[in-house]
């Protein structure tokens, strides 16, 4: 059977982990924001700005890690704007988030056109190369998937571990989660809800931008205007699917990536030739909606998500 052939090849699992990597960064970023009580709909645009600035930095002759750093800082900058408008000023998180997405996307396109007015085909950079971990990468089936990836993929999994530890094992994480559950309790402890939320949105946005940078610096080697293509929105669905828990959210991204990798391969089979290719391209978006529906009854939403906090107001 076709399906088993696909599932038993190592290259399939390599693709699954590669497809999941940018989503893991952005999902962790969104998860941090939402845990602190802020829905960040800027995610789609922040991924675009990360993809663009990271790529541009390398294209200008700097090294790849500088590109990642610049992407993260650019994301944090837009995160700061989002946070200032939604946290102390308490503006609608829907409207501000969409505004940030429009702004960051337009800013990327504008800057791209100014920097490269003449180009017709998108210029390339030399992206991150695969780092093979000796011995482990030779394991059958999943060895290459887990131990022969680009450094950003390893960083993605490192980020998940760091986010889990910080959120659930440190006083900072406790305060951050409380800011999203019961902000007045945080204030009663003498901590600032405003500062915690602004910090969470900035860090989260930085991670989203690295997720975007993965696309231009690890997956492809050029920047295209439409390259993020809804991945940000999918990550918001993945946060819900994961029940706002880092580990479960990562399982969600891997499951999602497996379906995505599968549909790409099914397109090459006789079945794929018989079905319009657009049906396959719809699969990720349909799956995201299904994930939301499946999890709707079980989800434990942070109680103060999307509720602005105004000191002294009861």
């Amino acid at each position: 059977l076709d399906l088993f052939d696909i599932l038993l090849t190592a290259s399939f699992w390599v693709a699954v982990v590669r497809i999941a990597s940018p989503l893991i960064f952005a999902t962790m970023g969104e998860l941090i924001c939402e845990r602190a009580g802020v829905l960040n709909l800027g995610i789609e645009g922040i991924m675009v700005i990360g993809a663009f600035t990271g790529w541009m930095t390398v294209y200008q002759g700097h090294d790849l890690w500088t590109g990642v750093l610049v992407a993260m800082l650019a994301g944090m900058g837009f995160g700061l704007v989002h946070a200032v408008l939604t946290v102390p000023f308490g503006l609608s998180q829907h409207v501000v988030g969409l505004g940030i997405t429009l702004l960051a996307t337009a800013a990327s396109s504008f800057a791209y056109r100014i920097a490269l007015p003449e180009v017709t085909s998108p210029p390339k950079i030399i992206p991150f190369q695969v780092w093979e971990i000796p011995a482990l990468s030779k394991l059958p089936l999943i060895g290459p998937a887990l131990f022969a990836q680009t450094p950003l993929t390893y960083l993605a999994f490192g980020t998940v571990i760091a986010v889990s530890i910080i959120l659930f094992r440190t006083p900072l994480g406790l305060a951050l989660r409380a800011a999203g559950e019961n902000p007045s309790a945080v204030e009663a402890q003498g901590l600032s809800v405003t500062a915690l939320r602004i910090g969470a949105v900035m860090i989260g946005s930085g991670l989203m931008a690295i997720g975007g940078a993965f696309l231009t610096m690890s997956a492809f080697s050029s920047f295209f205007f439409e390259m993020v293509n809804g991945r940000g929105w999918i990550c918001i669905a993945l946060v819900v699917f994961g029940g706002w828990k880092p580990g479960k959210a990562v399982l969600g991204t891997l499951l999602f990536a497996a379906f995505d990798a599968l549909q790409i391969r099914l397109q090459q089979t006789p079945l794929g030739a018989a079905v319009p290719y657009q049906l396959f391209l719809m699969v990720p978006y349909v799956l995201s909606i299904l994930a939301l529906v499946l999890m709707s009854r079980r989800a434990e939403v942070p109680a103060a998500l999307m509720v602005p906090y105004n000191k002294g107001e009861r």
Partner: protein
Amino acid sequence: MRLEPIANPSRLRLIGLPALALALTVLIASLLALLAGANPFATLGLILKGAAGSKFALLETLNRATPLIFTGLAIAVAFRAKLWNIGAEAQLYAGAVVTVLLGTGALPLPAPLLLPVIALAAMLAGALLLLGPVLLKTRLGVDEVVTTLLFNFIMLYFVSMLLEGPMKDPMGMGWPKSAALVKEARLPRIVEGLRLHWGFGLALLSALAVWVMQTRTTLGYEIRAVGQNPEAARFAGIPVGRVLIKTALLSGGLAALAGFSEVAGLRGNLTLDLSPGFGYTGIIVAMLALLNPLGVVVAGIFVAGVFVGADSMSRAAGVPTYIADILLATSLLTMVLAIRLTRSKVHWR
């Protein structure tokens, strides 16, 4: 920092703060023009001239405003009930698909009958497309922001599938486009010889109708009540779920009219580039209009003017047209902040 509501904002606040927001937007646009190596004053002048400097420019702006008024209304209606319909783009395409389906010769009706039938069918398609996410919201508590956003992508692939499959024009030289509408299914021009079509008239009429609905009917009152406080509305005996569904049907229908009017009024056929994001820009239009349906007309024309003006400026001065998108996103953010500050005082400690 703490915000304290102001009961009676002074006139200075009410006019000064939005003016300041506008000034900040213009300042940012000037900086962007400088960055692109152009003279900021000349750039802004060219945008103005391109948007309203001649009869041709002005009509072009009104043409571009037409779909934006429809999507702006769709979003204003929905946001008023705090129903976050971000799927106007998909609903627009649903309307466009139905317009092509019925307008290419399937219905042998004379124009005065055919056009209303097509318009209503298009509205129905848009309405049904939003019904799904809303039922998921009211029945299962699934957030409609993400579902409506995701539907935009699904719809585009669906339209692409249609245009390369069953809806493909056999005479289209292989291009993915639909067959042309029959003459009876085309919206006529308002003045013969000028490019402005009756879609614009329909947009004005829709704005008026929505305004009447919002200010003069029970449904309008109920929508506002649900938007302000769903718990209180439920307590007052308002069927919140049903009001949200009615709102959704109206919102989806209005967005679909944008697709109908673009296909039947402007293009005459359907291609994948029918909408350069009218559904998303409608959010800016609705917010700049403070969700007021009559304001949507003004905001729609303003936003269209920025786009049309920027296109023509870009050809003359070489500043990328994306300056329009930056300008509008900035004006959205500065304006919502300004409005908030007209109604509340900031205490810094």
